[in-house]
């Protein structure tokens, strides 16, 4: 299914870049930052990481993001331009030809700045989702990744040149875009939003290392949490499913022809190219196995009546219709069982989702989204932002304490966020002028470097241009 494919692709973007030349010892992603003490700016919110209301204009940002690509084939998609962008994204900041990149992307990226400062995101997709269900394609969402990558190049160039005001403008554009993707009524859109925000974090870290970079503790603290919502996506998941069952009647008995048409439709959705891989895999085989068993059929009728269908009607339904309706009921129940835990803290989602999985029996329609993965992706982003708040809090502390690091986090006077994966403080230790901050992984991911982020923060006495490096060590 296209949608599943897209969802998987969306989830793969969370593999952060790593330098492979480092020796592998611990299963963690090590991010080395070299930063200088910096007090909070005055006024405290002089720098923000999302567009301020004063910068906003009326309009639909989504429509305006799409305009970025008009007449810009060469910049976005030419092989040469594409390869160059890949290089520019990966090369160390000090090697970046920043002067050449001063107006990188020109009008196309300035159009993105404009779009990000419009106040009414409308993806114009809801009705299509209702009409086409899981067949609907989301090419616009996919294409915004290219825009984010191009913006990241501009962001890095601005950081390299020490043009912090411009860099913050780009950061605002990227974070606003990620939040607009959070308004997309699909998890796919939300995940791409999380990916865009994650892409923004890298240059932001590089910026913190630059001499004279303002302290962004309050700017990071002002960011909404979660930064990218998945609320609209979860609502949209219900909409996706509706058209799937449009032709499954729950009021009148269906004819053999109607049932056959519906079964073909479901086969197409559930199996590659609409055909089961082997005998016994198809929808008809599933139904046949249950129709034969009178007890199962009777239990299915009973459940439908309990769910509110009129008993007399259910008695008149053909057996296949009864089983299919019962599976639909089960699908909706499972869907809600998964969705109801979405807003809980991620460590509770992990626990409850594992319990749900244990008690599940095989079902025909398994459309429940991979909510654990979605919430973990969201929490990883929030964890990274929370860690950066810590980095900035350390810079604040050092500025007030003659360049010294705190012995423990509780010595820091500004409020610090807990680790979104545990609800507890981050792990912190100091060795000389180096601080180590570690996030905790969710259960089962203790050996996965993606979920084990370690910031090694070296505090510079004098302002020295730092060099950020990121190492993901395999276990």
């Amino acid at each position, binding site marked *: 299914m296209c949608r599943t494919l897209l969802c998987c692709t969306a989830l793969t973007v969370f593999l952060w870049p790593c330098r492979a030349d480092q020796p592998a010892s611990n299963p963690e992603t090590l991010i080395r930052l070299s930063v200088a003490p910096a007090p909070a700016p005055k006024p405290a919110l002089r720098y923000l990481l999302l567009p301020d209301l004063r910068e906003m*204009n*009326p*309009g*639909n940002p*989504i*429509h*305006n993001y*799409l*305009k970025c*690509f*008009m*007449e*810009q*084939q060469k910049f976005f*998609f030419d092989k040469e331009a594409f390869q160059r962008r890949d290089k520019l994204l990966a090369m160390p900041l000090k090697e970046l030809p920043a002067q050449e990149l001063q107006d990188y992307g020109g*009008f196309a990226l300035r*159009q993105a700045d*404009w779009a990000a400062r419009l106040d009414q995101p*409308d993806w*114009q997709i809801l*009705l*299509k989702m209702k009409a086409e269900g899981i067949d609907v*394609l989301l*090419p*616009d969402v*996919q*294409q915004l990744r290219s825009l984010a990558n191009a913006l990241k190049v501009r962001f890095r160039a601005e950081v390299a040149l020490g043009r912090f005001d411009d860099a913050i403008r780009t950061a605002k554009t990227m974070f606003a875009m990620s939040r607009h993707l959070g308004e997309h009524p699909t998890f796919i859109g939300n995940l791409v939003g999380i990916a865009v925000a994650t892409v923004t974090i890298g240059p932001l870290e590089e910026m913190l290392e630059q001499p004279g970079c303002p302290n962004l503790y309050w700017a990071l603290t002002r960011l909404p949490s979660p930064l990218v919502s998945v609320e609209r996506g979860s609502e949209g998941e219900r909409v996706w499913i509706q058209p799937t069952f449009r032709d499954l009647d729950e009021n009148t008995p269906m004819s053999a022809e109607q049932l056959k048409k519906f079964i073909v439709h479901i086969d197409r959705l559930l199996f590659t190219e609409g055909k089961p891989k082997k005998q016994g895999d198809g929808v008809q085989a599933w139904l046949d196995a249950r129709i034969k068993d009178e007890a199962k059929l009777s239990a299915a009728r009973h459940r439908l009546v309990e769910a509110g269908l009129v008993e007399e009607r259910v008695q008149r339904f053909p057996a296949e219709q009864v089983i299919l309706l019962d599976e639909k009921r089960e699908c909706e129940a499972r869907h809600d069982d998964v969705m109801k835990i979405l807003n809980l803290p991620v460590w509770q989602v992990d626990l409850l989702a594992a319990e749900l999985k244990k008690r599940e029996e095989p079902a025909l329609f398994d459309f429940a989204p991979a909510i654990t993965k979605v919430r973990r992706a969201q929490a990883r982003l929030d964890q990274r932002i929370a860690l950066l708040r810590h980095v900035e809090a350390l810079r604040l502390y050092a500025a007030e304490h003659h360049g010294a690091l705190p012995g423990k986090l509780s010595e820091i006077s500004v409020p610090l966020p807990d680790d979104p994966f545990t609800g507890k403080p981050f792990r912190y230790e100091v060795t000389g002028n180096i601080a180590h901050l570690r996030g905790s992984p969710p259960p089962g991911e203790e050996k996965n470097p993606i979920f084990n982020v370690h910031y090694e923060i070296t505090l510079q006495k004098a302002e020295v241009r730092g060099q950020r490096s990121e190492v993901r060590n395999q276990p």
Partner: protein
Amino acid sequence: MTCLVFALTALAMLPVLSRGEETNLMARPMPAPKPALKYQLLPELAELNPGNAAQNYLKCFMEQRNFFFGKEAVADRARYQTMPLAELPVNKLRDYGGYALRQADWAARLDAVDWQNLQRIQHGGLGMLQEELGPLQVLVAALRVRFRAEVAERRFDDAIRTAKTLFALSRHLGEHPTEVANLVGLWAAHVSLLTLEEMMQQPGCPNLYWALTDLPCPLVDLRKGVQGERMLMAAELRPLCDAAPMTEAELEGFLSRLSGVLSFAREQSGRPPRSLRNALQARAKDPENVRAARRRLVESGCAEDRLKQFPPLQIILLDEKHQYEVQRDERMKLLNLPAWQIESMAGSEEHISREDRLLADLLPHMIKLRMAQAQLEQQVAVLRLVEALRLYAAEHEGKLPAKLSDIPVPLPADPVTGKPFPYTVDGATARIHGSRKPSADRAVHYSITIRN
């Protein structure tokens, strides 16, 4: 300035609308469908959904760069638009454009259109980019290929679906607040009508007389575009202050930008370069010139005391701006008049010596615009006549009427001249003549042969 490039490019496109050569159509008698509006050429309300068409057109291009912009695809599309219908590789072209063009069908059936550029046009000046217009022309071309393939296979229901999409897109472009977009809309409708002509010649093609009659007139509006141009120029001239004296630096900044815009406009229209600075300085140094300019400004309502404080260059520039606005409105006021009236009324202003007025190169090309619109209406009217002939022939054993007044359904006058189309008949062949300009004679010739 980009807006200017587009405007000039689009105006260059206008001759495409004026096919001078004779068009030969082979048509078959065909009665009106029942019910009469069984076929329509714009999406009906019943087909519409809520949403913004403009945004959804742009979605067509997402993740579709090979189809729209790949070298091979572009070359193929150019061939498919021009090769004889009978040679089209219809099997290959079935579902041409796939999801991308189905997305255009969806977009064309949305009930609102908001191009999301009003605010930027109000404040942006002539440097505003209308970056979506180039790709939308490519979309029109792609839809036209699908339309031709459907016609070639005589899949008339599908063909009419595509015609609806194309005409709706044309009308949506008529809602764009720039002239250039309106012109692209006229062009899109024009090329759609060319394919409709091909369709009307296919055996079994339903009679589209009432479908064509049902089309709104004008099919593509120019009002928003013309108003948009006003806004663009207003934004461009906004830095020229009439409330307080300007400093030398402010005047220099304004002049630099204006100079660039005007040089570019002249270059694009193939006119020799001219130094704006020299011309202005010459005028500003001539006290008589400055006095006359100041007097005109006072007459137009500016406070005399205030004007006395202004440097001569500011006075000359303000006077030029005022003269520009007067001339611009003299042209724009004609927009809603019938074509044959506009030509006589606008005859003098289109010939104003461009050397006299500094901003004359930026005046709207109202006659060209209006004529382009009238020529499109003429194309629709001629096709209505062709379909009326097919109706008549169906009721009269394949015979053509001796004169147009024999036809029982209402017939349009030539939108360019306001007079009935000259019509002659010779056996099974009828000839209809139209004019490209009210003052010109019979430049458009349609020859319709009825095949039984």
